[in-house]
């Protein structure tokens, strides 16, 4: 058996909330970049993010947790003021 993996019968997951263990940064080709001058802090991007990777910081600015951003670009698509652009990520 591989280390660190648990093989419950039938693939049952009995430890809730373990999706944080699955990082998505390796999926990403494009990375969101935000123009905070344009941003109105409406929060639509955070609502639409399928991975819950967008959060509000102390100053009310929306930030990206890049460990869990898979680069889908939905935030850029839904932003009403087009403050987010998806830029190819350099390795």
């Amino acid at each position: 058996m591989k280390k660190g993996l648990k093989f419950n019968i039938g693939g049952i997951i009995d430890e809730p909330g373990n999706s944080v263990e699955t990082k998505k940064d390796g999926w990403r080709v494009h990375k969101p970049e935000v123009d905070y001058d344009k941003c109105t802090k409406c929060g639509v991007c955070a609502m639409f993010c399928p991975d819950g990777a967008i959060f509000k910081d102390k100053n009310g600015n929306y930030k990206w947790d890049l460990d869990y951003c898979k680069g889908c670009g939905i935030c850029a698509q839904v932003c009403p003021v087009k403050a987010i652009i998806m830029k190819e990520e350099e390795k």
Partner: protein
Amino acid sequence: MPLFGKFKYGGKNVISGSDAGAIAAKLCRPSVISAYPITPQTIIVERLAEMVNNGEMKAEMVKVESEHSAASVQMGAQATGVRTIGASCSQGLALMNEILHVISGLRLPCVMMVANRALSAPISIWNDHSDTMASRDTGWIQLHCENNQEIFDTVIQAYKIAEDKNVMLPIMPCFDGYILSHLYESVNVATQSQVDNFLPAYKAVHHYLDPKRPITIGSVAPPNCYTEFKFQQQKAMDKALKVIKKVNSEFSKEFGRSYGNGLVEEYKLKNADTVLIGMGSVCGTIKSVVDKHKGVGLLRIKSFRPFPTEDIVRALSNAKRVAVVDKAFSFGNAGPLFTEVKAVSPVKKINGFIMGLGGRSITEKDIEFVIKNAGVEKNFWVNVNE
């Protein structure tokens, strides 16, 4: 007026194979019935519905719109932590196929009766084993019955095998449509207390609904762990070989009936040069023909999955010729039972006979033909107009 004739618990009754299956299921106290009627399995569902309707059976009868839904509902119900019963055959079983894999993969100990019927096209409502053979790789245990008493007994045993902590796999008790499902014969119907003694109330260990223990059922397994889950399923199948034997002997102690060692039944094999191998009701016909011959025996395969390799090898150790009777065919190759027996047979002179497809009668004359041609270097389609 009830369709269902009166019968008595704890005594002999003349009932059909479907009745036997339905009464046995009732005595096992399932909480949910999920089945969609299909000929020739319909009577099972009717009987269960009737018993629920007249208050004899305390179970929820879920009306579904297809077999795909029937299997899905059974899966969902079982996953909440209760005992369930299903039934199907033929096109219905084929439609269930997707869910059958999910049920076994989730390791839910469901029991679903199958009244074996041929597959379309052309449409045939009559018996052969094409439907369960096509479900061979779904990960379900398959136990094939020879007569109505065995149907009754196998359904009760099935729950005990499926729910064993070393097994946790779904089971199909299989019996020939019409030939058994619509045949009335004497069946010893057990009492509720006998069955309760043998089969304790279901207590789900892994899958149950409890807000204090939130779980995910039906998770994703990436390439780094999928193989392990499949390996676990195979290990459970290996363990099922022992558990089926154990449950067969426990059943014998409680009810005084057993079927070979639970996996295979050996009939007059001691001094047999020629051994016939078959499954299901045809074995009754084979036995009556074997009785008229010297040096001929029958090995009946009761458990097709898991496949009892060791028992087959042992049973064939004195044989010189082996003939395998198949009521199904794998197009482009040979009969599925023949192919599998041949793979493990210590006897080189082995051949296969395709017969009884789509409900064609298998007569004693046909079995005589099998005995006469056993072990020759050719497979046969018996009784076919070429």
